């Protein structure tokens, strides 16, 4: 119950402000608008407004600036404003895009915001021209009721003015509103108002003074899902080995009426036309042609519900979130793909390279609240600069990727409130010497080379302190007789030899050849000087004596 009350309050407030506008004396502009036609398309969650203005210079001085006015509530949702002029007659028409820039005026009534259209040729006194203006609003459809159940359809409010807000006097104006379906619950009447099917016509209104405002409210059904990407980070990594790797991180939310109560899978699956009509089941991403290695995953792994269709002109990736998104539900995911570099990287005339890539979000029909585009230049590139057709925030970062030493320069561009119109190309210029491409392979080669050299050196360099005895006596034959107190050398007997002439260095034992046989000499230890050698012998049978060959290994025999 709260929402309608609030809506009514706002309405009242706007009406008051309207009075204020109307009472104000018109500004001292020389321009006037002889005819204005406005078409508002409400079929998706992005509100498209096509405005055709016939502007006349009634003053004496030529002017090249035309102001567009927006109420402050709309300006926050304004994604883009474009203006163009058609020139020529009939078949030879050419379209000229005009510059549009936000402007601050000192005496703006009630915080009205302005955009200035700069004409290519100044409009002389008495002349008139026809401007086509397109602007888009996001987040302008307010769901009402704000929360719906699974089987209900989504109804939304749209607020605007029946009269075009303008600092100029408008002689004649008409507004057409197009709803997505014939189900229109209610709409404000400002006579003359007509409704025909899905379209509502306000006007024509004659001779309205500047800053006229007449709020209207339309309540209609809009069952299209409202995919809103709250945050999108696109990372474009250039590798001069021939690949352009794009990684896009999405935080997606369904911006429509919030889901209320239960979600019943059985209803959703058995009656898809009645249940969850406004739910977001899949999204379509339009990717560049020749895309390869596409992946679609989130923080807990691969998402298996996606299809890729490629042809020579474009690639389409159809992705389904893990679960259908109802109003207010969120999902995060990641799309990554590789592209052939030659399609996007070019050399400019001044021997610099530039990347030519699309700026916006590849998902169709989505609003992006915040977009960050990161272009990761190859290591060693210099003087980066970005050229973007609309204002963005820019700064530089450094990123370390595989085996980087100095790091890669990252050009970071940020922009808020994007619509598919922003999918235009931008360029990043930089200089790069191809020598840097070899840095990492060379580094690896050097590292392995050094490793092998170290191995070879270790095997060939004798770091031991040489023994004091240069005796050229490579072998000793040890004769062992059983000591008097033990009648026989029993299996596993430890024999001790005292060799006074032996230096305490490495000894190697060789297979003893005594009768009966020592099967195995399992161990030998060398005591402190005078050198004792303790042998653990494992005999196959008892014997009285055996002969053991001991080699003094340190001294290499000279043949």
């Amino acid at each position, binding site marked *: 119950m709260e929402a309608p009350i609030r809506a009514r309050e706002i309405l009242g407030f706007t009406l008051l402000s309207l009075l204020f506008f109307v009472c104000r004396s018109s500004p001292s502009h020389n321009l006037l608008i002889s005819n204005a036609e406005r078409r508002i398309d409400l079929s998706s969650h992005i509100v498209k407004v096509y405005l055709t203005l016939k502007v006349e210079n009634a003053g004496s001085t030529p002017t090249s600036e035309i102001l567009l006015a927006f109420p402050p509530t709309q300006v926050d949702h304004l994604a883009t404003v474009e203006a163009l002029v058609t020139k020529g007659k009939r078949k030879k028409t050419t379209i000229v895009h005009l510059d549009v820039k936000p402007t601050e005026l000192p005496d703006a009534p009630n915080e009205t915001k302005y955009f200035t259209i700069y004409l290519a040729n100044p409009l002389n006194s008495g002349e008139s021209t026809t401007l086509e203006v397109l602007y888009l609003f996001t987040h302008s459809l307010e769901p009402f009721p704000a929360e719906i159940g699974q089987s209900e359809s989504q109804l939304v409010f749209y607020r605007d003015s029946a009269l075009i807000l303008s600092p100029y006097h408008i002689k004649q104006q008409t507004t057409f509103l197009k709803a997505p379906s014939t189900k229109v619950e209610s709409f404000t009447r400002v006579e003359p108002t007509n409704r025909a099917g899905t379209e509502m016509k306000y006007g024509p209104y004659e001779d309205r003074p500047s800053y006229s405002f007449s709020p209207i409210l339309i309540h209609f059904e809009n069952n299209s899902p409202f995919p809103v990407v709250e945050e999108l980070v696109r990372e474009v990594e250039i590798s001069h080995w021939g690949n352009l790797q794009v990684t896009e991180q999405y935080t997606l939310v369904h911006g429509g009426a919030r889901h209320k109560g239960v979600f019943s899978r059985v209803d959703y699956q058995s009656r898809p036309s009645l249940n969850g009509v406004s739910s977001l089941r899949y999204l379509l991403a339009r990717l560049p042609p020749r895309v390869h290695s596409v992946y679609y995953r*989130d923080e807990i792994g691969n998402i298996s519900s996606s299809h890729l269709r490629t042809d020579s002109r474009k690639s389409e990736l159809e992705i389904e979130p893990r679960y259908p998104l109802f109003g207010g539900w969120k999902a995060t995911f990641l799309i990554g793909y590789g592209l052939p570099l030659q399609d996007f990287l070019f050399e400019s005339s001044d021997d610099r390279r530039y990347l030519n890539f699309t700026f916006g979000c590849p998902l169709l029909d989505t609003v992006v609240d915040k977009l960050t585009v990161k272009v990761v230049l190859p290591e060693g590139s210099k003087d980066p600069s970005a050229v973007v057709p609309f204002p963005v925030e820019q700064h530089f970062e450094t990123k370390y990727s595989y085996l980087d030493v100095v790091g890669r320069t990252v050009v970071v561009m940020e922009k808020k409130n994007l619509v598919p119109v922003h999918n235009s190309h931008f360029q990043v210029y930089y200089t790069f010497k191809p020598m840097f491409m070899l840095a990492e392979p060379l580094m690896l080669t050097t590292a392995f080379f050094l490793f092998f050299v170290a191995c070879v050196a270790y095997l060939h360099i*004798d770091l031991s302190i040489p023994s004091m005895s240069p005796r050229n006596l*490579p072998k000793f034959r040890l*004769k062992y007789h059983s000591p008097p107190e033990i009648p026989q050398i029993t299996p596993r007997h430890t024999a001790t030899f005292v*060799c006074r002439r032996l230096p305490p260095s490495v000894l*190697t034992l060789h297979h003893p*050849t005594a009768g009966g046989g020592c099967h195995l000499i399992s161990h030998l230890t060398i005591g402190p000087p005078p050198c004792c050698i303790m042998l653990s012998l494992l005999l196959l049978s008892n014997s009285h004596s055996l002969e053991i060959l001991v080699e003094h290994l340190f001294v290499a025999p000279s043949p």
Partner: protein
Amino acid sequence: MAAPETSTAAVPTLHTNNTVRNAFGGVLSFFILLLIGVLAFSIRLFSVIKYESVIHEFDPYFNYRVTQFLTKKGIYDFWNWFDDRTWYPLGRVIGGTVYPGLTLTAGTIWWLLNSLNIPLSVETVCVFTAPIFSAFASWATYLLTKEVKGAGAGLTAAVLLAMVPSYISRSVAGSYDNEAVAIFALIFTFYLYIKTLNTGSLFYATLNSIAYFYMVCSWGGYTFIINLIPMHVLLCIVTGRYSSRLYIAYAPLVVLGTLLAALVPVVGFNAVMTSEHFASFLVFIIIHVVAFVYYIKGILSPKMFKVAVTLVVSVGLAVCCAVIAVLIALVASSPTKGWSGRSLSLLDPTYASKYIPIIASVSEHQPPTWPSYFMDINVLAFLVPAGIIACFLPLTDASSFVVLYIATSVYFSGVMVRLMLVLAPAACITSGIALSEAFDALTGSIKFQLPGVSTDAEVDAGETSSDTTEAQNDEVKAEKPEETSKDRRSKKSKKKEREHVERPSAKAKVKTKAEKKRLLALPLEASAVSLLLLIVLGAFYVVHCVWAAAEAYSAPSIVLTSRSRDGLHVFDDFREAYSWLRHNTDVDDKVASWWDYGYQTTAMANRTVIVDNNTWNNTHIATVGTAMSSPEKAAWEIFHSLDVKYVLVVFGGLVGYPSDDINKFLWMVRIGGGVFPHIKEPDYLRDGQYRIDSQATPTMLNCLMYKLSYYRFVETDGKAYDKVRRTEIGKKYFKLTHFEEVFTTHHWMVRIYKLKAPKNRIRGKTKKSKSKTSSSSSSKTSGTKKKNPWH
């Protein structure tokens, strides 16, 4: 005692050939080892290729989450980490209750890679830790077996271990569990023990303690080491094999190892206070007594020695009796006699099922069946006895250790399926020895029988080829002393020297050797056929291992696939549900589910859970079990008292996924009934049979688990046919009064319900009175009081 005689050796010039052969053998075995490593790594990648690079199952998700925390927050925060996301409202001190070896290893690898600017994600590192460590484990097996029976047996054992299915089952890519690194640590510790035993080097003894420390860090199975090694030491002492090497191998291990083990927070004072470690201390005392006796024996005359022995024995016995009595009294005063439940269930296989349903409920704690032996170690089961016989020819300290290892691990694997993993390396080592000895004998006979091969050449070849012959074995032995003393001369010159030694003796040996060979030689045909059969056996093993790796053990279990006529069908419901929870519930909401899904919920959904797979608090798990087995209202009260907002159940009835909550439900009843006696298992069984069809008991049909699983199930096909239980369910149409369905995944495998707000309670009570079941309300209320320890 014996005077050294010098003899000059004429160095023959024609032995460069042998040097080259030796060098070739070394390089060859190096490359074979490298290939074994590659094999061990790549055979475990089936899961990544067939599915995706993802963490598997349940416990690995916890380890993964801990590793993420470690890499994000650093080591000190990791030690002090109190996790409030789990065991709500108790929480869990992760740093003090987790074996940190695995996470620290993966964290170190990650840190190392990132400091080299190789930006691999923590997940990737975790996924591939197990395969990397399997390669290490097979190299450790090579070293261990080489110490026991020479390089040939080592290589064979390493190949066998690289692809033994039992080990693969725990170490496929993505199976990021403690066992992944622990098996390597286990084998490597044993290797260092044998190495110390063979060399008597204190250096290796120290390394051994450090390896033991790593093992303690990694896995609770370290108690196997600290019991097996004392057993072996005792065996050596009893069989009269005591030597100073044995002392050096054992005493430092106990002292250093225990000190190091006590540094691991999860072990701490358990390293000296629980019975699992007492055997090592006892043997530590014994070995000192024995060493002392040997010392005394050396300095006293035999007569005096006898007197001393009688004196000491009489006094010593009295003291020992007193000490043992005190110890027994101390141990007996603790309820579990100082043994933890899991260890007790090892010693007494029936212990767990009798007393601890929570241990018995885990399938991997059940005793294995015979087919599982064949599945997990395959032909090794037949080779093991041969290997044991080979170990007795001759029995050395090292080979007696292998025999003891295989004997104990066979016993333990018979108690718990999970410990099949400990058996696998032992089986590989013994089988490697058996195969290598068999090949040795057979190829030797063939070589001997082949006409046209001169005796001289034969012996020559026998000494240098394939490094499995006796001569080579001895050479390996003889090489050891060189390594012990610190002379670091190049391998090449060593080899050269060895050639020079070999020559004169070889000439003398030729005759005896040839005679020996002739006696041992088998007929040519017989040896050729048996050789062929052995190769076929090996081929069979390889085929089986590849099959096991590809088909049986590669499923990550969080994503399921089924092949049908119209292609591969993917069931990704678990992640769908976790992802939904992660994004569409409040960050502090508590989710209740059976404990199997606790780790996954915290890791993937990042939501607080009531119980998880670390089953340390039986009462808490029993509370959830009780709630699941109670009627709706009582369950609502329990959950509400635990501040639970969502209840998650796993239901496989629609697609036929058998390990769902309905199949696990009896364990919930048992565990719940173990703590809260008003839950009685017979109430849920009809004539001792567990069923959910129309014959099921009213208690069963009214319990929360039944209702949450089958809520509106009938609307899918009209009959409510459960594909897992293969029957129509008993109660088809019912409503939920205290819970509402908020999410069900695509294939209905996970269903999430939300607790309705408390204001609905009054309405629920009036409605509920109608559907009151046989269980009396008085016992229910008394149960509720006990059920809510936080009221």
